[in-house]
């Protein structure tokens, strides 16, 4: 019997488009039937033939598969960019909270409008991601529960990440209220004073959140990548609804990407207006846990910018895939 490593190496000889379509079933076939060196030679010849087919553009079904894969990658890139944007968004809320910008936003109509734009953009992006992702999530979960068993443990990653965050926040609250004593951490913080111990504790919340978000995104990426989800039929009552999942999710992905762009522009405007009205805010330490406002603001802008760039890069790939379908 030939080891898994050799089997995987043999499968890698085939073109990417072929592997996307046949790798899983071919691997199980090799596991069962690869016994003699002649079979290995046969696999080599098969790989050469598959490459020739791709070069000649003979196999239409693989080309379609390639396009579907591009579309799927587009959706995953936009999703990952959105998760990055959520991290930036929460940081922005943390920056604005309890800062001198809050009373300023109540009096300055332009500042208020830019903040409102950020909030509306966030709501639209969230709605788009939920609407576009719902059929895909439903399919992936259904497949994991029925056929794709190897995806089950990966689907638990977001659940455990959320639980880890809840547990850590619970722990922080216990420390905050004085039920758990930790050296260097003060239960009640007076305004304008934030001891290093408390800062570390709060940075822990952010770290757990970011690590959980990254782990969950990677897990979702892996699960979606290896689930065969071109088209799915959903039963709603007695009606059967057939959905082309990737095509369905493409328009919400475009909306989410443009919402992120609008939020980025609104955040730039908001920062510029805040700086014009109250320059001391940006030179001082009004960031979360009394840290540098400038560092937070430019960090947030950089992250948002990277996410928007990634989302539009993904959309460009998806558009080229849709055109050639």
């Amino acid at each position, binding site marked *: 019997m030939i080891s898994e490593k050799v089997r995987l190496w043999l499968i890698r000889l085939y073109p990417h488009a072929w592997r996307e379509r046949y790798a899983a*079933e071919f691997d*199980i076939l090799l596991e069962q*039937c690869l016994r003699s060196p002649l079979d290995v030679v046969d696999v080599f010849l*098969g*790989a050469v033939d*598959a490459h020739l087919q791709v070069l000649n553009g003979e196999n239409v*079904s693989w080309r379609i598969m390639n396009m579907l894969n591009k579309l799927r990658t587009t959706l995953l890139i936009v999703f990952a960019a959105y998760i990055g944007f959520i991290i930036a968004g929460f940081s922005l809320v943390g920056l604005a909270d309890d800062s001198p910008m809050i009373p300023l936003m109540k009096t300055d109509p332009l500042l208020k409008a830019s903040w409102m734009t950020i909030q509306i953009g966030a709501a639209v992006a969230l709605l788009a991601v939920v609407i576009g992702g719902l059929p895909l999530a439903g399919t992936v979960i259904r497949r994991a529960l029925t*056929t794709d068993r190897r995806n089950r443990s990966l689907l638990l990653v977001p659940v455990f990440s959320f639980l880890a965050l809840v547990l850590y926040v619970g722990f922080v609250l216990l420390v905050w209220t004085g039920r758990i004593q930790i050296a260097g951490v003060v239960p009640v913080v007076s305004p304008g004073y934030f001891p290093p111990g408390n800062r570390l504790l709060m940075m822990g919340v952010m770290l757990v959140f970011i690590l959980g978000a990254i782990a969950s995104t990677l897990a979702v990426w892996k699960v979606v990548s290896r689930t065969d989800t071109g088209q799915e039929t959903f039963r709603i009552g007695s009606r059967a609804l057939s959905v082309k999942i990737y095509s369905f999710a493409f328009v919400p992905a475009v909306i989410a990407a443009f919402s992120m762009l609008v939020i980025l522009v609104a955040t730039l405007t908001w920062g510029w207006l805040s700086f014009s009205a109250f320059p001391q805010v940006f030179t001082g330490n009004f960031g979360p846990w009394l840290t540098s406002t400038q560092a937070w603001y430019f960090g947030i802008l950089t992250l948002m910018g990277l996410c928007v760039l990634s989302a539009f890069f993904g959309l460009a790939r998806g558009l080229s895939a849709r055109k050639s379908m």
Partner: protein
Amino acid sequence: MDTSEFGRFSDPAMLILACLAGGEKHGYAMMEDIEATAGVHLGPGTLYGALSRLEQYGLIESLPADERRRPYRLTGQGTSFLRQYLASLEKFVSLSLKRLEA
């Protein structure tokens, strides 16, 4: 369409079609069945080279995977193609037999 479209995969392709005429099967079951009925051992590369072409021409179709195994079955087009091929083969066999007897 004729079998020449399958190039060096024409014989394996016809064996697969004949094998699937008995019902849906996944890759390994096809190999076993072809070996048992026709005495031909199809290597994995040959099997999937032929399968991908048959699928491309719409003569067979894949069914949802059971675990990682994906069964295949004949399409209507595949059934009539096989029937036509077997009929011409039958004509050829009877003509050749007649010549031998003459």
